[in-house]
């Protein structure tokens, strides 16, 4: 008998049940940097210079970093959907921070964050890491933390519009990926979605070779000029309705690779982006989150930060117990 039958059964079910159930690896994931306390950075010099990609701004008038302002496809920056965020510490800190930030001050454009941690290391009182897979936003401006006040109005409309476009897809969503100048790591994280741990097929999501069969375009990379035409052809070849997800900080803003003679500073100049997902690279859970955000299929229950932490801790306990059990049963040979 083929050895593979038994080998396939060896570890039982390794597939995550996220998002239906919490997953400790998902909720504990270290996402882009965030502003913990905008007031702490008030008046401090040199904060902007901390960031190698210029994601930090300290303008007093509440304007976002220039990357967000340049956003041509969305009217101003709109709020990111709190209900769809997993980040426990982020939620609380931010809502609290947003009011104070109107008076001035430190903003961080996560769309430019390459997760080098330089700001967190230099000013842990001002900056921290976001946690959880929910790094994606429906607008470019929505990646700015704390959120830019007074720009939340259109978010509901954008979300509803997206949901209307994707409603017909239901549980048969086909993805096409195009690399527009990535560093190669994003491809591996997307490919992982097909593996046994993330297994997107369980969610009715499939990869397809032909753009003609694709509903969602995952674009990675800083927008290499050589890929403009192939990317555009792929996009044009897709039938409506279609969704574009910019996967990774490079795809969102060009990251550290731009400005360069060979890139366009992200992919949004070539294709209209619906979901913006920063990360260097984003984890498979973050990519999954972005996909479900685009499809309007994230669980809608809003959990408080305390509840989320409790859920996470419970899940971690469970996993630890399971692991111990399995180890005791001897999973070895």
């Amino acid at each position, binding site marked *: 008998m083929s*050895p*593979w*039958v038994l*080998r*396939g059964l060896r*570890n039982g079910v*390794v597939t995550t049940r996220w998002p239906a159930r919490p997953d400790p690896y998902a909720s504990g994931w*270290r996402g882009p940097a965030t502003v913990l306390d905008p007031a702490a950075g008030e008046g401090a010099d040199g904060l902007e210079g901390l960031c*190698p990609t210029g994601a930090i701004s300290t303008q007093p008038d509440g304007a976002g970093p220039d990357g967000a302002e340049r956003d041509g496809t969305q009217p101003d920056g709109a709020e990111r959907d709190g209900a769809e965020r997993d980040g426990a510490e982020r939620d609380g800190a931010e809502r609290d921070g947003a009011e104070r930030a109107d008076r001035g001050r430190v903003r961080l454009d996560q769309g430019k964050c*390459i*997760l*080098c*941690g330089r700001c967190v290391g230099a000013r842990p009182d001002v900056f921290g*890491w976001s946690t959880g897979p929910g790094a994606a936003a429906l607008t470019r401006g929505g990646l700015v933390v704390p959120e830019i006040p007074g720009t939340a109005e259109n978010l509901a409309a954008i979300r509803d519009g997206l949901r209307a476009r994707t409603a017909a897809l239901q549980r048969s969503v086909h993805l096409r*990926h*195009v*690399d*527009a*100048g*990535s*560093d*190669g*790591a*994003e*491809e*591996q994280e*997307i*490919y*992982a979605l*097909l*593996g*046994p*741990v993330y297994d997107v097929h369980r969610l009715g999501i499939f*990869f397809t*070779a032909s*753009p003609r069969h694709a509903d969602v375009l995952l674009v990675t*990379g*800083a927008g*290499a*000029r*050589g*890929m403009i035409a*192939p990317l555009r*052809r*792929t996009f044009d070849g897709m039938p409506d309705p279609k969704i574009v997800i910019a996967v990774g900080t*490079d795809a969102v803003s060009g*990251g*550290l*690779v731009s*400005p*360069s*003679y*060979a*890139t366009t500073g992200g992919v949004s100049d070539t294709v209209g982006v619906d979901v913006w997902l920063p990360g*260097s*690279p984003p*984890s498979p859970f973050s990519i999954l989150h972005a996909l479900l955000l685009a499809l309007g299929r994230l669980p809608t229950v809003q959990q408080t930060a305390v509840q989320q932490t409790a859920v996470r801790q419970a899940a971690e306990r469970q996993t630890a117990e399971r692991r111990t059990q399995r180890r005791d049963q001897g*999973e*070895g*040979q």
Partner: protein
Amino acid sequence: MTGGRAAGTGLTGGIPPIMPASGVNALWDSVMRDVAAGRRFAGLMATQRPDGVLLSAHIAEPGGIVIREAQLPPGATSYPALTPRLDAAFWYERLIHDLHGISPEGHPRLAPLVLPRRDDAAPRPRPGAPGGPAAIQPDEHSLPRHVMGPGLFTIPHGPVRSGVLESIEYLVETPGEDIPHLNMRVFYKHRGIEKRFEGMTPGDGLLLAERTEGVASVAHALAYCHAIERMSGAEVPWPAALVRVLHAELERLANHLDTGTRLADAAGLAVATARFALHKETVLRLVSRMCGSRFGRGVVVPGGVTALPRLDAADLLTEVARLERAITGDVNAAMGTSSFLDRLRRTGPLRPERAREHGALGPVGRASGYDDDARRGRPYDAYPALGRGDWLPHSGGDALDRLRVRWDEALGSLHLLRQAADELAGVGDQPLRADCAVVDGTVTDGRSVGWAEAPQGEVLYDLRIEEGRITRCRPRSASFHNLVLFHEVFAGDILTDFPFIEASFGLSVAGVVL
């Protein structure tokens, strides 16, 4: 071993010997003498200096990398090509032509490699020179399309291909099933990385190095930092040297498992595909538990590492033991599955003499009997004190031998991981980072070469810093050096062998075109 032991004996030699040649022909003569003496041609690059273009050849020898250089006269638009004398320079000289606009006279096929343009006279990036064009739009129509014989047609395969892959186009010329000739177009995802380094501080340059070839972030960071440490005369503290080895070997393990996954996928072995993908995910999660990033980014810094793994050594050893059991079992099963082996045996053979002539790097070279492992030949960090383990030599050069080499390497990595974790358990509270004069600004000028053995093979950084800023940085990944061999490995193979041959090379396009 707990004391403050000096690590990385291969790195303490100050700047590498630079041998200026009196002219280009004299330079090529000395390169050819090196190659004839058994040293390896490791790369060729051009730098725009105020007084003309500087050609630098890298020669690998036991213990280090030697640079041989010659300066072209100011305003020179051509020089006698090296490629007619040394095939391995084929892509290097095309790249120089693309980036600098100077022509290697006598080059057999000077088609654009990374910057196809219709207007040959338009401004070029010219790495090394300040400034440069803000945007260069490549034009694929300026590339020649040629088919070799009657009855052949071309299957353009890419740049957007089936599956989740990086962008590259293969032009497969075929009468229907055989592949008598194959061409590659790699320019699509050229990002201008070399030029992007320029003007950066040494600290920012490290972040870009980590993102040059994302699947080998640790190896690129190591090679980059080795260059800076060499310039600064810095000694990496022993615990940091061990942490570097941990991350470098986990990266190797993840990449080799990825190759195994893709080969099993190509053969339609669903369970094997899932198993190797599961192990790879386990490795990436282990890396993220250690440092927060699944690709080991932010760990390696000039002079050492940022932190010890967040996992204590005992947990690490447990994880390594568990991985070893799981991987060994599945590898043995895969290597006993005849339907799998049949697809790999005699597929995509690279002849040993070609591997040696070209100086094929990493697993591709080792599978064809050419083993120049930087961890052994030019050891760095903690490698001189750790055993890589002895492997059976392979020389079949086919996809099967390439996979065998990868499994040997994967088990070797686990062996190294165990040793490094053991050692790390014994180190006390020691500094993790030595001061680097180039980073803290006490030394503002320097030039050096750093290297590391990536999962794909040796990666090389030639770095020049002036007034505290990078003025030239040329990363040379193994992917760039090895991919050109793709031209030669299709003899006797048919279209359905293609995914096996491609996966068995295990290269990253990002590292090819930069």
